[in-house]
């Protein structure tokens, strides 16, 4: 059995809905978050294909690790691989919306197991040895406490990898994507609502500027805004961004696997996640470099990445 001193045996975090959580998000920000979220689906195996993820270690350790993963995997699965896949997807889901994911580690002494419970990363302050969570005023009437203090040893925190800007950088990307409306500036939308078409305003120019801003904001991610047209860019640059997006996916994949390994070590679980058959970030960069040198064409570059 592993150590137990790094956890609690009951849930302490507050669970509430952030104000404005149900508001309709800006279109491109929402699409970007969806696409980042889909990055976590890499582990899903297709029919007749070997799963790309598995847990390695002694049988008992693998069972414990599977139990941890199953606690956040949504539906509990019979196969360990599906539990770890579900857990990774859950982590990526939180990262896609907040840039960081916070989970309370709960000890279940009766079953000699740990479980994870996610909580809202908003309204959480990072103190030296603990996290201070203060619920927003609107949710006080639904809660028994207005705030709580969580020991850092009882929290598993996963941030966006630094290569992709970290949590702060990601939230900055989301903020930039919310700054411009894809439908045009407000006065333009108001004119349209009044069924007037402003003659001086060139929507094509606005759209181009919007796309530049979108591409600039997601430069490190290589996101293409779900736009495969070549209106303003070369086909090469389009593939360059496509490969950059694949690189971001590989970085995220390795980062989350590494975070799980850290968690398992903290919990005294001697198991690790093994990823097979998928391109590493270095592999993707190598393919991108070969494409730049002209050694690989676009089809070859696409095939070379998994």
């Amino acid at each position, binding site marked *: 059995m592993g150590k137990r001193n790094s956890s609690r045996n009951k849930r302490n975090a507050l669970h509430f809905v952030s104000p404005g959580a149900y508001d309709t998000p800006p279109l491109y920000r929402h699409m970007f978050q969806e696409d980042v979220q889909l990055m976590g689906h890499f582990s899903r195996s297709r029919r007749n294909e070997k799963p790309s993820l598995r847990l390695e270690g002694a049988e008992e350790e693998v069972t414990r690790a599977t139990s941890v993963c199953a606690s956040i995997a949504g539906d509990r699965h019979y196969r360990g691989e599906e539990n770890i896949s579900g857990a990774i997807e859950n982590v990526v889901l939180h990262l896609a919306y907040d840039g960081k994911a916070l989970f309370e580690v709960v000890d279940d002494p009766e079953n000699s197991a740990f479980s994870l419970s996610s909580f809202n990363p908003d309204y959480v302050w990072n103190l030296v040895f603990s996290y201070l969570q203060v619920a927003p005023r609107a949710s006080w009437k639904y809660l028994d406490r207005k705030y709580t203090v969580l020991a850092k040893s009882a929290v598993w925190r996963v941030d966006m990898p630094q290569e992709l800007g970290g949590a702060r950088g990601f939230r900055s990307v989301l903020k930039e994507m919310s700054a411009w409306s894809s439908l045009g500036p407000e006065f333009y939308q108001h004119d349209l609502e009044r069924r007037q078409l402003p003659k001086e305003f060139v929507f094509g120019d606005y759209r181009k500027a919007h796309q*530049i801003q979108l591409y600039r904001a997601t430069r490190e991610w290589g996101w293409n805004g779900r736009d495969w047209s070549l209106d303003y860019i070369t086909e090469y640059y389009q593939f*360059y961004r496509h490969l950059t997006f694949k690189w971001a996916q590989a970085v995220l994949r390795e980062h989350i696997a590494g975070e799980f390994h850290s968690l398992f070590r903290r919990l005294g679980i001697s198991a690790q996640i093994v990823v097979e058959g998928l391109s590493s970030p270095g592999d993707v960069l190598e393919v991108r470099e070969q494409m*730049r040198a002209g050694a690989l*064409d676009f089809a070859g570059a696409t095939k070379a990445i998994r």
Partner: protein
Amino acid sequence: MRMELEVEGTIHTPVWYQQDLVCKSQAESLSESVKTIIESGSRFFQDWSDRLVRANRVWQSSAVLGRYLEYLNKLEQYHLSFFKSYADSLKATRHLRDLPWPDIKPELWSEAARGFREKLIRAMADHIVLLSLSQKPEGVPDYLGQFIHETGENLFNALLGRRAGEAQALIKPYLAGTLVLFDRMKPSSPKPDVWTEQKLQIAAAPVLDILELSGYGKLFSELYADGQLWAAVSGVWDRFLEKSPGTLPWLAAIITGGTPRFQLPHRGLVRTTWSMRVQQELNRLPQRNSMRGGTSGIFGSDVIHSSPLARYCARYDFHNGRDIFAALYLSKQPGGGELDWGRGASDLPESLRRKEEAYEEGEQNGEEE
């Protein structure tokens, strides 16, 4: 790439890819431009000439055809090869095989230009008759002479290239044109002095051209075993001599007295060039070793061909078309047997007979290729 620069602060698209895009664009432009130059340029001249003919302005129309000929000559001799090498250089810079490029086929450019040239050749031949019927305005170049000369060259190429249909279309106006020229330039004075003789030789030159070409028509017909070539030539002569039987003595006089004895004849260089090209064609015939007079005889070689005329011309470098035409056609016309067609023509039938006998002897001796 401005957007790429604004987004990234640098341009990731490599130079070779940019070159590919530029070259692709240039290739598209080249393909379209050359097509326009060949097709639109040619149609422009054709339509212009046709409109002038309909307005009875045949000399102006001839001027347009003259420029059209120059246009096509420059295009085929210089520009198409430049365009082709330019297209090849663009293709050589291509890196991306999956980038759709225009399907540039320089051989189709040449084919299209040849098609327009064929139409021009016929238009010039048709103009010979139109110009013959019209008085040349003062100061206008001699388009009639130019078109007769061009048509002669084109007729030779048609015969050499085994294009019987084209030869048939050209020889009729060509014959009419040469006779008109002869009629205009022949001496009017019956006084037999040196000036009269020179005038006759100048006037005879175009007639000698068509006699030469008609003889080559017979030779090529046998060389290629293509009866249509000879039918195209002889049919026009048959109809002409049927209508103008009195021309036969004139033709005999032109053959025997139309060339000066101790100097280069008029248009002799043109006919010599034809003769050399005929010889080049005959030199391609296969040969075999031969022996005459039994085992102690003389070793030599024979040209292998079913036609005695082709064998004879190939063996003895005999390629005087007008002698062939006089010996094998004109002398056999009604009244032609009594006329003097010159020594070359009179000796030819006997030479062919001897050649035939020697060839048969060689075949019996089992000669080798």
